[in-house]
């Protein structure tokens, strides 16, 4: 157990370094290209216009908060220091609300939507894929192309189709929002019911695409395992079919766990934009409005939170994986492989 703790510590250290690197990117990338936020604000002030007073105020806030008159590296240190105090700056578009406050609620909405959707999609997809590989025949020939098709559409595009057919044409679900605006956010049955009603379509968009991707991966892994020597050997020994399926599933599902963790980074963009399709009040929606309003502190707050979420999820998966697969634990500790 002590060695396992060491493994966890090492992984944690690695993710901490990655996070630091992500912070660097988050800070420097938008400032690298000409047309960074500050010079854009300055040019808007210079061009005058009705909003110049507000612009001036924004500019002052921005300069003060981020210490823009100092060298870049000091600015960065200041940025990190602010971050550790839980300060992400002040939103431009919702001045003078702090970014962290704007995002606080959005994070909860996003987590409530994304986590269950991705998990349900993962479980259903892997079961389907395993069955397709085992049953072959008609089942496989329908599951495979359908999964591939769902996996080819981005989450938000599927969301647009679902929104049109199920909400606009058939009028089964609400067309926008995360809850009925007439209700206040409480834990009352009326609010929860309304939230659930609004939840169905965005949830379904993310689940279906995830199911598709996982089913394809799992089918492939299972076919691979089913063709392997140990399966033939078990068959030769006369071991029951279901026990063999059990062995195969165990071996095939392990790479699916790490695969899922690493693919999160790729998937998260599409699934967050699904929120835009349904005007769902999550981080994806905030990011969308922030970009349209050139609200740089809010944009960078969103990207930082998204990175943090993906890194956190990866770390959790690493832990789970270390717990389930003794080989990995041994390899990590013995410094072998890699």
């Amino acid at each position, binding site marked *: 157990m002590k060695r396992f703790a060491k493994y966890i510590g090492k992984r944690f250290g690695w993710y901490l370094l990655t996070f630091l690197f992500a912070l660097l990117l988050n800070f420097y990338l*938008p400032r690298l*290209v000409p047309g960074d936020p500050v010079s854009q604000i300055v040019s808007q002030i210079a061009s005058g216009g009705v909003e110049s007073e507000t612009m001036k105020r924004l500019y002052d806030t921005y300069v003060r908060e981020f210490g823009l008159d100092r060298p870049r590296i000091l600015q960065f240190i200041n940025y990190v220091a602010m971050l550790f105090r839980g300060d992400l700056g002040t939103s431009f578009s919702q001045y003078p609300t702090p970014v962290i406050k704007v995002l606080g609620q959005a994070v909860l909405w996003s987590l409530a939507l994304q986590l269950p959707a991705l998990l349900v999609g993962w479980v259903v997809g892997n079961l389907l894929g395993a069955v397709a590989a085992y049953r072959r025949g008609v089942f496989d020939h329908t599951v495979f192309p359908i999964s591939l098709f769902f996996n080819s559409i981005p989450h938000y595009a599927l969301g647009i189709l679902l929104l049109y057919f199920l909400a606009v044409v058939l009028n089964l679900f609400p067309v926008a929002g995360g809850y009925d605006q007439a209700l206040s956010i409480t834990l009352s049955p009326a609010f929860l019911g309304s939230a659930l009603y609004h939840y169905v379509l965005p949830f379904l968009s993310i689940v279906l695409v995830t199911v598709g991707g996982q089913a394809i991966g799992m089918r492939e892994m299972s076919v691979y395992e089913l063709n392997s020597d140990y399966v033939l050997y078990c068959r030769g020994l006369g071991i029951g079919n279901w026990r063999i399926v059990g062995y195969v599933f165990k071996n095939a599902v392990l790479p699916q766990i790490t695969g899922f963790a690493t693919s999160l980074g790729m998937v998260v963009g599409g699934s967050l*934009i699904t929120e835009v399709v349904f005007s769902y009040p999550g981080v994806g929606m905030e990011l969308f409005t922030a970009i349209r309003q050139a609200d740089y502190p809010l944009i960078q707050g969103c990207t930082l939170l998204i990175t943090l979420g*993906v890194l956190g999820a990866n770390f959790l998966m690493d832990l789970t994986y270390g717990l389930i697969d003794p080989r990995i634990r041994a390899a990590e500790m013995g410094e072998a492989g890699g």
Partner: protein
Amino acid sequence: MRELIRRMWRAPKVRAGAMVFLAVVLFGLLVPVFVRTGPMKTVGALYEGPSAQRWLGTDNFGRDVFVELAYGTRTSLEVGLLSGLIATLIGTAIGSIAGYKGGLVDGVLNSVTNLFLVIPPFVILILLSIGLQSRSIAMLAVIIGITSWSWVSRSVRAQVYSLKTRRHVDMARISGFGTFAIILRDILPYVLSYLVMAFVLQVASGILNEATLSMLGLGPLEAISLGTMMSWALMFEAVRAGAWWAFVPPVVLIALITFSLKYVNSGMDEVFNPRLRRA
């Protein structure tokens, strides 16, 4: 190379996928030749339904959706192909050097690869493009390419790592060939089938990445892509107004392109990994 193509072509999945993909490419190439109206030209009112004259009606600006679709397909394909090429090249270079050199070089390159594997490319794409003043097609393709090579790099590294202990590589090393010569002549040809597959997938993901950026309003500024079409339709309430012709076609085309490419990829996988074929 010819042998490679011949073997791939024999797989039904590869053939079917390639046919669909070629049909889409032809659509993007040919329609602009035969139709005179430009994609940006206003030809009617907002959201006119499909008619004999305008097969897919008009969009929120009164532009011909059918024409836009052809030009949009072209843009998306361009972005996909260019970004796919860049990502595959960078990934191959980093992965093969890391796998062949090993040691410290591998340590550094592999850490960088792992960083780019977990930090969402989507985030880096946004951070890079919010500041860009001119977002041309080429510019978008480049930034998509330089943010999505990590998957290629990881697999290439693993394969090169096992290839470098082969006899012919030892022979080349003893004969005094340099690292790059050996990688190019004695190692990469054996990874070629994988590289083709990786490229195919990277094209698909490049097209999806472009669409994702466009959905956020960070798409190409002076061109129409499948992503910008979806984004306009959504912003101008085509969905709630029931103007299906403005958003169903781009969604279907995106799905067709990615579906066909992934189908080709899956077919190639069965050709090159005999273990995946059923006994």
